[in-house]
C-alpha cells in the first residue's frame, strides 16, 4: 500500500518526475558510454599490441626488458633456436617467432628519419603477428633486400613500392653500419604508431646489419584461445632456463594500461559529477514533495503512522524516481554503446590516412561491460535513496499538530 501510494505520488507531478529522472539518466548513461569507450580503447590497444608488437607473451634475455628503451644489444638471446623449440612444445602455445628491434635512421637520399627497425623471420612471423595481412600495397618480404614501411612514414618520405632506401644504424659493437633496401610493401596496420615510424625487414639481414650472429632481442609468443596469459607466463618461465624472463604484453606496455586506468578514472569522475548534479535535482524534487505535502504528513501521523513509515514512503518515492532514471540511463547508455559496438567511431581522418588511397579504415569499436551496466543501474537507485534521506528528515521532525496546521 505504501508502495502504491509512493508510486502515485511520484506521478502527481509528471513533468517534475520526468525532468528529475532524465537528469539522473544523463549522468548514468554518460557513465556507461564512457566505460564502453574506454573498454573499446583498451581492447583496441591490447589488440594492436598483441598483433603487432609483442604477442601475448615475450621472452627476453634477463635484464633486457629493464633497459628496453635503450635497445641494449649486449643482453640479447644469443641462441634462440633451442629456446623457440622449448617454448613451442609447451601446450597452449600457438606460435613463437623471433624478432630484433633496434633504433635506426632511414634515408631516401634526400631526408633522414628516425625509425624503429624490426627484423622478422618471415616464415614464423605470421604464426604470431598480423604484419603479412597488413601489407596494403606491394608484397610481403620475399627477398633479403626487401623492406616493408609504414604507410604514414611512406607518405611523409614520399616513398613508393620499389623505392630504394638506406637503413643506417649502429651494430652491437657501436660501429655505424648501413644497408640498402628496396621497398617491397607498404604496411597499414590498425596501430597508428606502427604506421608512422616502423620499418620491417628480414631477420637474417638484420642480424648481419647489427652483428648479432644468431642473436635476437626477443621471442614473441602467441597463445591458443583457451590459454590464460598469466598461467602460460609461469608455465613458460618454469620450462626455460633462468637466464630468460617472460613478460606479458600488459607488463611490457604497463605504462599504456596505467594511463588508460587514469583516463578511465577521470571519465568516471566527470560522469559522477553529472550524477551529483542530478542528485541535487532529486533533493530539490523530494524537498518540494515534502513541503507541499506537510499537511498530508500530519494526517498520516494523526492516523498513527510513525517516522519509520513516513521515511519509508518518501524513500520509495526517491527510489522510484531513481529507478526510472536508472532504467532510462541504462537504456540510452546501452543504445549509444551498441552503436559504438556495432558501428564504432571512424578515426580514419583523425589518423590522416583518408587521402592515402588505401581501402582501410581505423574504426574504434566499443565494448560493453554488462557488470558495469548492472553497477550503474544499482548506483542510480542507491544515490537516489541516499539523497532522499535529507529532505525526509524535515518530514520526520514535524510535530503532527504543526504539520496539520501547515498551509
Amino acid at each position: 500500500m505504501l508502495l502504491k501510494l509512493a508510486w502515485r505520488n511520484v506521478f502527481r507531478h509528471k513533468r517534475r518526475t520526468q525532468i528529475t529522472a532524465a537528469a539522473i539518466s544523463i549522468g548514468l548513461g554518460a557513465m556507461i558510454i564512457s566505460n564502453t569507450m574506454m573498454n573499446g580503447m583498451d581492447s583496441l590497444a591490447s589488440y594492436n599490441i598483441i598483433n603487432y608488437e609483442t604477442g601475448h607473451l615475450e621472452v627476453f634475455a634477463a635484464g633486457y626488458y629493464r633497459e628496453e628503451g635503450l635497445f641494449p644489444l649486449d643482453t640479447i638471446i644469443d641462441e634462440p633456436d633451442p629456446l623457440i623449440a622449448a617454448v613451442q612444445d609447451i601446450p597452449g602455445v600457438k606460435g613463437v617467432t623471433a624478432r630484433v628491434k633496434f633504433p635506426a635512421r632511414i634515408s631516401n637520399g634526400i631526408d633522414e628519419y628516425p625509425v624503429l627497425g624490426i627484423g622478422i623471420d618471415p616464415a614464423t612471423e605470421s604464426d604470431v603477428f598480423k604484419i603479412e595481412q597488413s601489407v596494403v600495397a606491394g608484397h610481403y618480404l620475399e627477398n633479403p633486400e626487401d623492406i616493408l614501411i609504414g604507410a604514414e612514414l611512406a607518405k611523409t618520405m614520399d616513398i613508393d613500392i620499389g623505392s630504394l632506401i638506406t637503413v643506417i644504424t649502429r651494430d652491437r659493437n657501436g660501429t655505424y653500419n648501413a644497408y640498402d633496401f628496396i621497398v617491397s610493401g607498404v604496411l597499414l596496420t590498425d596501430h597508428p604508431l606502427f604506421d608512422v615510424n616502423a620499418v620491417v625487414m628480414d631477420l637474417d639481414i638484420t642480424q648481419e646489419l647489427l652483428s648479432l650472429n644468431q642473436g635476437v632481442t626477443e621471442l614473441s609468443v602467441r597463445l591458443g584461445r583457451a590459454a590464460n596469459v598469466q598461467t602460460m607466463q609461469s608455465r613458460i618461465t618454469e620450462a626455460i632456463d633462468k637466464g630468460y624472463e617472460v613478460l606479458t604484453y600488459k607488463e611490457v606496455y604497463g605504462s599504456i594500461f596505467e594511463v588508460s586506468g587514469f583516463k578511465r578514472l577521470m571519465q568516471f569522475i566527470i560522469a559522477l559529477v553529472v550524477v551529483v548534479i542530478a542528485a541535487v535535482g532529486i533533493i530539490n524534487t523530494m524537498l518540494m514533495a515534502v513541503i507541499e505535502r506537510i499537511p498530508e504528513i500530519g494526517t498520516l501521523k494523526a492516523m498513527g503512522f510513525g517516522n519509520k513509515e513516513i521515511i519509508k514512503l518518501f524513500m520509495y518515492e526517491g527510489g522510484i524516481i531513481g529507478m526510472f532514471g536508472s532504467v532510462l540511463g541504462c537504456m540510452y547508455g546501452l543504445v549509444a554503446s551498441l552503436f559504438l559496438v556495432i558501428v564504432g567511431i571512424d578515426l580514419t581522418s583523425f589518423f590522416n590516412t583518408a587521402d592515402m588511397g588505401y581501402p582501410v579504415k581505423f574504426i574504434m569499436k566499443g565494448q560493453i561491460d554488462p557488470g558495469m551496466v548492472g553497477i550503474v543501474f544499482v548506483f542510480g537507485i542507491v544515490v537516489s535513496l541516499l539523497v532522499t534521506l535529507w529532505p525526509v528528515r524535515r518530514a520526520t521532525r514535524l510535530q503532527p499538530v504543526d504539520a496539520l496546521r501547515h498551509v
Partner: protein
Amino acid sequence: MVEVQGLYKDYKVGKVLFPALRGVSVSIKDEEFTAIAGPSGSGKTTLLNIIGCLDTPTKGKVVINGTDTSTLSRTEKAELRKKMIGFVFQTFNLIPVLTAYENVEMPLILLTMPECEKKDRVTTILEEVGLGEYLHRRPNEMSGGQQQRVAIARALVKNPSMVLADEPTANLDSTTAHDILSLMEKLNKTHKTTFIFSTHDQLVMDFARRLVLLRDGKVVSDKARKAE
C-alpha cells in the same frame, strides 16, 4: 474514558505568550457524543489536539483509559493514535492520489490482520457511510459531503475507542452537515465509539448529547442536552 485534568496550553508568537487553554478539566465517558463548543479562539481545536496526542500541554494531563498521555514518548503516542483514536478534520484531509477505498484502507496497513479482513472492514464501513457505490472514486471526484463520509469511515475502520472530529461540518452546507451529523450519531450508537467534536455551529450543538462550552480557554458550561 478520557480524563482532562487542569490543562494549560500557551502558544508563543514572537516574544508574546498566548494562552489557548487555561485550566480545562473535563471527563468524558465511553460512548459519549460530546460537542466542545465555543467561539473562534476559545481553545476547542487545541483541546482536541491534546486529547488526540497530536499536541502537548504546557501544564496538566490527559488520561485515556488509565494511561497518562503526558508520560508517553512520540512513538508510544503514535501507537496510541494508531489503535485507539480516529480523527475527522474540517478539511477532510483525504490523500488525493488514493481512491475512497484506499483512503479508508490506510489506517489498516499499520495493523496486523488478514487481507480478507481488511477488505471486509473497508467495504462494510464504506457501505455503512453510504458510499458503497463510490469505492473507486478519488477525492476530487466526490462532493464535500462524500469526502467527509470517507474521512469518517477512515476514522472508524480500525474500531477506535474514540473519534475526535474538529469542526467536521464547517466546510459543508447545512443539509449535508445535517446528514453527516446524523451519520455520526448513528455510528456512535452502532459502533459504541466515543465521539468528541468541536464546533461553533448551533446545528452541531443541537445534535450533541453533551455540550462543553469553552470561552477564552476555560470551560464555562458543561451540560447534558438530551437523554442518553
